[in-house]
């Protein structure tokens, strides 16, 4: 994942990007909530230029899932 995108996501989650690993469960992050989900949806949409669906967002369980979604959208 582009480091800038990871930084933007980390900023929304209000944590150090270095603390985010592929195994990090999103539900364990204190600021992974209905609003940051939207913010991450916007970040991913802007970064990839692709449509991000609510279902794709609902399927995100770990930070690795976010990385995989980003990779899938950027081909």
């Amino acid at each position, binding site marked *: 994942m582009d480091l800038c995108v990871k930084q933007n996501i980390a900023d929304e989650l209000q944590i150090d990007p270095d603390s985010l690993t592929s195994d990090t469960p999103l539900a364990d992050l204190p*600021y992974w909530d209905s*609003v940051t989900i939207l*913010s991450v949806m*916007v970040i991913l*949409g802007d970064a990839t230029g692709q449509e*991000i669906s609510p279902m794709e967002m609902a399927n995100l369980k770990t930070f690795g899932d976010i990385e995989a979604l980003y990779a899938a959208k950027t081909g």
Partner: protein
Amino acid sequence: MARTSTIRAIAHALPAKVLAHEELVARFGERSLASILKMSGIRERRVVAPGQCASDLALAAAQRLLKHVPVDPATIDALIFASQTPDYRIPATASILQAKLELAETCCTFDLVQTCPSFVFAMQAGHSMVVAGTARRVLVLSADALTTLIHPQDRGLVTLHGDAAVATLVEPCDDGQGGIELFAAGTAGQHYDRLLVPAGGARLPASEETRREQTDDSGCTRTLEHLFMDGPAVFHFVVYRVRDFLAKLLKDHGLTVADFDTVLLHQANKTMVDMLYKSLGVPSEKRFYYLEHVGNSSGASLPSVLAQAWREGVVKAGSRTLLCSFGGGFAWGAFVIRWPADADAAVPGDVDVPPPTAT
């Protein structure tokens, strides 16, 4: 019968009570509000006080409009009250307002229930009556007190919404003078449950069970009698579906953004509105915002934007405006108006409506 109709005057009213950012910080904590403030662009909301109804705001807006515009209230042929928060389930609040405004008994009154796009549909109804010749003058009252349906511990919604009302006077427009040029609308009812109050209606009557508080995974608390919103689903609908609707509307009518002086959108939240503006290529000088200090006032939002845009001189006589709103249902709508050369729709004066006094 008239060829078309126009908006002769538009006046909005806001409850005087303010729900400020600082109060929400005390309730939810600074850090948990940081992302909401950034996403929404909403710092303060105007909210009804206990005992204050949407119709009270509508009454105040209508009274200010009728004081400013020299029309005899007895010549208002129809009153449409567009709201999701009526005074009673029965009768129509429009009827109650007819009496309070001392309109003629020949006045046709009805409530129109829709979510945020209600102003567009109420305008379409009023416009149709004028063009059909069944009403010469229509008073559209858009009013929502949605904060009364939001749980105070639902961080995602209490931070967004405010309350407001707008009175819009619709009259015939002479040939060649401008007026409303087109309406367009859409519905995707299979998504009705993405933004709804589940209980309290006929489908799920209120009960002890529906009043039970539940806290979701993100820490937002509500009951089944409070508003629920699936944020990602609504966001996706607006950013993609409404974008496509507007793009098709422009294409179908041989129009581009360059044909408008202003494009006004429902003030759902700033990020969403900006994404929609950007996707349509609306330059900054054609945008207008009215949400930072008032909040998202649901059905009253789009007409509030229009009323304030007139007050600030952003919308002017002779100009052309595209208006669009969207919301639960999902439902969406838009209309285009070319303001007549002598149009002066702004209604000056204090928009604040104080809380009701104890009796």
